[in-house]
């Protein structure tokens, strides 16, 4: 089958690889109908995340049709079922899964020892996201083996386009969890750094959850215009001072809720700390660029909440924990507990409360995936979200 394969830093290729097969009685195989490139895939593309090996198949936003089911998964799946696959592989049985903390499932990371060393304790296995999280082949491919498939799936009805459902796999519940864990009150101002796909979903989630005011911070005109369409007030950090503007919009008190939808590759260009981060990162003395974290710790209203869906990978410098402690801020973060939210979110899609396909700007055949990684990473061609379709001819833009 065809699959997008990681070969090294910024080197992704569409290769022929062996078809997946059932390896365990709880497995299922899906024929992929749509998959997407996630912003967190770019951390692998740029090789910021450790634990990739040449030959790894990329991708963790995937949906398709069940074509083969292991005997132990037949109680919940059958051939022909239409499923979205959450990016977190879950057993559904361990203590964390029973608590709804699916992203830290204790069972599914088959490289638990590595994760224990890196993070102290293991987290869930993930599709196509380094050997630290199990080294499972990803879903930017024609077929995908789904381990623990009896638990690791979201059944979706026929008759609705893939585009409306695909993002239940990751970015929609990620944006939703980012907003939910802020415990948004009707009087709250919610400031969201980053208007990429997760940022856009976070903006819509904060609006649905009833924030008084949603403020979106980015520098790219297309992304800011999409944020504005979703009901956000825009701040272009290349044209305005973010801290001053946020204070101005909140009567000098700062936003109650701050969300980092950027993560480890912040692109702030004018600040001293961002130059410091760039220099240290270039010399391999720092893994991440935490400009957004610093800024939101500084500007957040005392007793406020910081929500961090943005991915961080390693060791960060100059974090103003003094501001966090003295202002009594609460930090909530983590990979998304996808299945905790998807029943509710699927209903919201079916009820037309939200149509997540708004974020798609490029639809391309799987074979053009490697080119689209660069287009997406470099924000060329107005690119915000790329959907790839195995077997598709030609491409659609914006």
């Amino acid at each position, binding site marked *: 089958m065809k699959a997008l394969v990681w070969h090294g830093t910024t080197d992704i290729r569409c290769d022929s690889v062996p078809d997946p097969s059932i390896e365990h009685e709880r497995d299922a195989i899906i024929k992929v109908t749509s998959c997407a490139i996630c912003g967190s895939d770019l951390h692998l593309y740029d*090789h910021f995340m450790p634990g990739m090996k040449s030959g790894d198949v990329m991708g963790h936003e995937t949906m398709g049709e069940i074509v083969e089911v292991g005997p132990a998964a037949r109680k919940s799946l059958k051939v022909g079922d239409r499923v979205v696959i959450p990016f977190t592989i879950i057993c559904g049985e361990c203590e964390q899964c029973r608590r709804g903390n699916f992203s830290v499932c204790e069972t599914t990371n088959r490289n638990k020892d590595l994760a224990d060393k890196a993070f102290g304790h293991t987290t869930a296995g993930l599709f196509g996201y380094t050997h630290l999280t199990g080294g499972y082949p990803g879903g930017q491919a024609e077929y995908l083996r789904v381990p623990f498939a009896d638990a690791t799936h979201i059944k979706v009805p026929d008759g609705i386009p893939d585009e409306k459902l695909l993002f239940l796999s990751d970015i929609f519940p990620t944006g939703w969890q980012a907003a939910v864990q802020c415990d948004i009150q009707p009087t709250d101002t919610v400031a969201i750094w980053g208007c990429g796909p997760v940022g856009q979903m976070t903006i*819509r989630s904060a609006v649905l959850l009833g924030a008084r005011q949603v403020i979106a911070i980015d520098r790219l*005109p297309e992304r800011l215009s999409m944020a504005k369409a*979703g*009901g956000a007030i825009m701040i272009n950090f290349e044209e305005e001072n973010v801290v001053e503007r946020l204070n101005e919009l909140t009567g000098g008190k700062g936003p109650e809720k701050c969300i980092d939808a950027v993560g480890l590759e912040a692109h702030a260009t004018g600040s001293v700390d961002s130059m410091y981060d760039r220099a240290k990162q270039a010399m*391999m003395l720092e893994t991440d660029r935490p400009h957004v974290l610093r800024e939101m710790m500084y500007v957040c209203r005392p007793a406020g909440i910081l929500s961090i869906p943005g991915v961080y990978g390693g060791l960060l410098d100059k974090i103003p924990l003094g501001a966090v402690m003295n202002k009594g801020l609460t930090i909530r973060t983590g990979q998304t507990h996808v299945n905790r939210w998807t029943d509710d979110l699927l209903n919201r899609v079916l009820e037309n*409360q939200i149509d997540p396909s708004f974020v798609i700007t490029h639809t391309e055949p799987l074979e053009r995936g490697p080119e689209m*990684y660069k287009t997406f990473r470099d*924000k*060329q061609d107005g690119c915000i979200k790329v959907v790839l379709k195995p077997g598709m001819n030609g491409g659609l833009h914006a």
Partner: protein
Amino acid sequence: MHDVVRRSALPGRSQSSHDKMARGLGYFSLALGIAELVAPGAICRAAGVKGLETVVRGYGAREIATGIAILGSHDPEPWIWTRVAGDLADIATVATGVQQDNQSKGRSTLALATLAAVTLIDLACANGLNAEKGNRKTAIRDYSRRSGFPKGLQAASGAARDFQIPDDMRTPELLRPWDRGGGKA
């Protein structure tokens, strides 16, 4: 709105011609650096300068470090700019070290021409990499109608206000804002 649709990746690849050029320059840096470290005398003779073997060895170390950085970095652009700065140092070194005999002058002229050509290649590569990074001020696509709310923004605002926030993501009751009368503010 601009009618510009720019993508720079090579067909079927996740890298552009500038990415490829940067890798080539990385290997070139390594090769040149090793030559300067191992045979500084020969390099000095080829450039028509004398007595600069120690300087050339230093430059060799610089080239090797730069080459490793280019090949190992996800973003080679700053290191290509480092090469440009190195090129200028090389040019200044050769220009100030030119000997008076005709043979050396000829070699120095050829070396300066070569260095100028390499500098131009480095500049083209660094500028190309920089231009690919989407440093635009104007939109090339119009997404201002993409609310994502089929029933409109007004209907969406607060539509999920009745969502029950899970206990583990709620601010604990005891930590919620309160008024002096004992109730929640």
